[in-house]
């Protein structure tokens, strides 16, 4: 590893994993496999704990802002582990000179999102740093929720088996492209909005009706490719994905084609992968599609006995290839 931290270490891909393993796991001794939330047990009860820092730039973007994002992100991290999100704590690092009206708008949307997701924001902290010592506003949120014992397997995927189906709840890449557009003042002929949303209600509707959910993960940094590769590393089986089944909105596809991004690697803030037992996919898709947050849900692939520990993409052209773990920051093409 390098002697200093580079932006690649924050990309959610290989270098992020290396950093986590070589520094944080070594220092703190977390148990493998690493998941989005820790499962904690006390007196026969299980609850989950998660934490996340938000440094999005710009802090306001189409479809949300840093505050809404911080609540949705924490709620989703808890919900994909199978838990019911309950409480959130938040810390603000604010740059000197930050407009109060912006702070009020941001906390307002946090309150609104917390109400929608039925979670309570119960603790917080505020720090102000000098001009230029942070970029406008950073937020850290921690969340906790209660986990039903029957759902403990979901975050580690321990029940995954050959033939299980892969489902996602809609089109990929909207958050990344919306933020990229806002950051660079790109104007799209069809506006692209972030998919930023709390998915706990949608997820609990699925879990209440179906016991065959074997794994869930939100498709944030590193995108679908990142999550599938993490899963492939955790398991013995192989993973097969059909490119043509993965929904991507037209404007997002257009920007990706033009700038050389692959939607399978882009971050989402309202999308999850569900791995479910064969035979349960129709029921799950029906539940997801009946909700606005899952109307474009799709069956995108399955767990296979062959290609162990690898993710194979069946390309839209009819060929097949590896879908690798994201590496580095996605860069534009130069010729």
């Amino acid at each position, binding site marked *: 590893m390098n002697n200093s931290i*580079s932006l690649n270490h924050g990309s959610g891909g290989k270098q992020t994993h290396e950093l986590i393993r070589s520094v944080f796991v070594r220092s703190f001794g977390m148990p493998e496999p690493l998941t989005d939330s820790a499962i904690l047990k006390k007196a026969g009860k299980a609850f989950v704990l998660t934490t996340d820092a938000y440094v999005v730039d710009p802090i306001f973007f189409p479809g949300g802002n840093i505050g809404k994002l911080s609540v949705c992100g924490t709620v989703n991290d808890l919900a994909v582990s199978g838990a019911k999100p309950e409480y959130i704590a938040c810390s603000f690092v604010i740059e000197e000179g930050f407009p109060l009206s912006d702070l009020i708008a941001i906390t307002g949307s946090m309150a609104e999102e917390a109400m929608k997701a039925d979670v309570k924001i119960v603790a917080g902290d505020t720090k102000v740093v000098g001009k230029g010592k942070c970029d406008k506003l950073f937020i850290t949120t921690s969340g906790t929720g209660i986990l039903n014992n029957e759902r403990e397997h979901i975050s580690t995927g321990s029940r995954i088996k050959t033939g299980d189906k892969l489902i996602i709840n809609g089109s990929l890449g909207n958050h990344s492209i919306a933020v990229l557009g806002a950051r660079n003042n790109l104007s799209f002929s069809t506006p692209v909005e972030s998919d930023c949303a709390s998915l706990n209600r949608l997820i609990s509707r699925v879990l209440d009706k179906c016991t065959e959910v074997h794994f869930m993960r939100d498709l944030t940094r590193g995108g679908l490719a990142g999550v599938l590769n993490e899963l492939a590393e955790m398991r013995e089986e192989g993973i097969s994905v059909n490119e043509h089944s993965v929904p991507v909105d037209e404007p997002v596809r257009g920007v990706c084609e033009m700038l050389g991004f692959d939607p399978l690697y882009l971050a989402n803030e309202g999308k999850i992968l569900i791995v479910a037992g064969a035979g349960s996919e129709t029921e799950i898709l029906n539940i997801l599609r009946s909700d606005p947050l899952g109307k474009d849900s799709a069956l995108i692939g399955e767990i296979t006995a062959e290609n162990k520990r690898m993710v194979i993409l069946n390309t839209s052209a009819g060929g097949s290839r590896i879908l690798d773990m994201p590496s580095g920051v996605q860069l*534009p093409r130069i010729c």
Partner: protein
Amino acid sequence: MKYIDEYRDKGLIMMLTDRIARSVKRDYTFMEVCGGHTAAIHRFGIPSLLPENIKLISGPGCPVCVTGTDFIDKAIIYSEREDVIITTFGDLIRVPGSASSLEKQKAAGADIRVVFSGLEALAIAKSNPGQKIIFLGIGFETTAPGTAVTIKQAEKEHFDNFFLLSTHKVMPPAMETLVKEGTKLDGFICPGHVAAVTGSSIFNFLPEKYNLGCVITGFEPTDLLQSVLMLTEQVNRNDPRVEIQYSRAVTVEGNIAAQKHMKEVFKPCDAYWRGFGMIPESGMTLRECFEKFDADNFMPVPVIPHEENGMCICADILRGLKKPDECPLFADTCFPENPVGACMVSGEGVCNTWYKYKRAR
């Protein structure tokens, strides 16, 4: 999506693969010389759609891959100056120099900014009048017209803090070098975007001098497959010629306006290609009237020549003589996060593409 979906049509793809399978009569080796083609071929899984006796090999078509270490070293020396802002296309920042990379310099505090065009770099020069802005000009005939327009704009607006460090190159001399040096080929998949600027005639020397056919090709699966079919049929008929498959973008004459900008601003020069060494008249340097924008002239820096890692076989890979998995470093000590040779750096580099899409298959 219009102009994309038509070219990824599964029925059309199946028809083409079927026709290719039926036209095959012997072994064929075709080389693509555009990094965009290398990436597209593997991204769409094209090799898995072709009969085993059609081999696609990759040539020196990624501008990052053929860039010499001294260019990066020079940019790194500039980046260490307090009064300099380096502006560059994204892929270049990860290329290893002899001791560092622009990415590492950036992490250590150097002002290095990724831009999408030369004009964006010029805008940075405008808003930072106290700083010297160096734009790293890289690429073939595709990006050179953009750099030429930037230089003309800088001249028009009397910029005195904008400089170009050019490693712009032209494609045909490298293709000729590898044919002359004995790479065995049955034809070229020629770069569509280069030809859109230059016109198809720059490849006439291939059939005329070397009896080799070539098809100027687009970047979608049906484009690539149709070109493979056209090349196979050329070989079967023993009728090497320059054909344009990518007719929606390429003409015989090319983009006259872009050519004019390039000619006004650049003149040919000998250039260093990683893996090949010096190739006469294969580079583009600023003409005398624009010399004041040449970073080399204005701020000359000494660069000590550097030996490449002796185990790295990038040189043979760029000539199509070896494949990435024949390199002892491939996926072992050389991988995208720690590239030893330049072919592993860019998303369009041969080794990088193999690592991403073909490793362990």
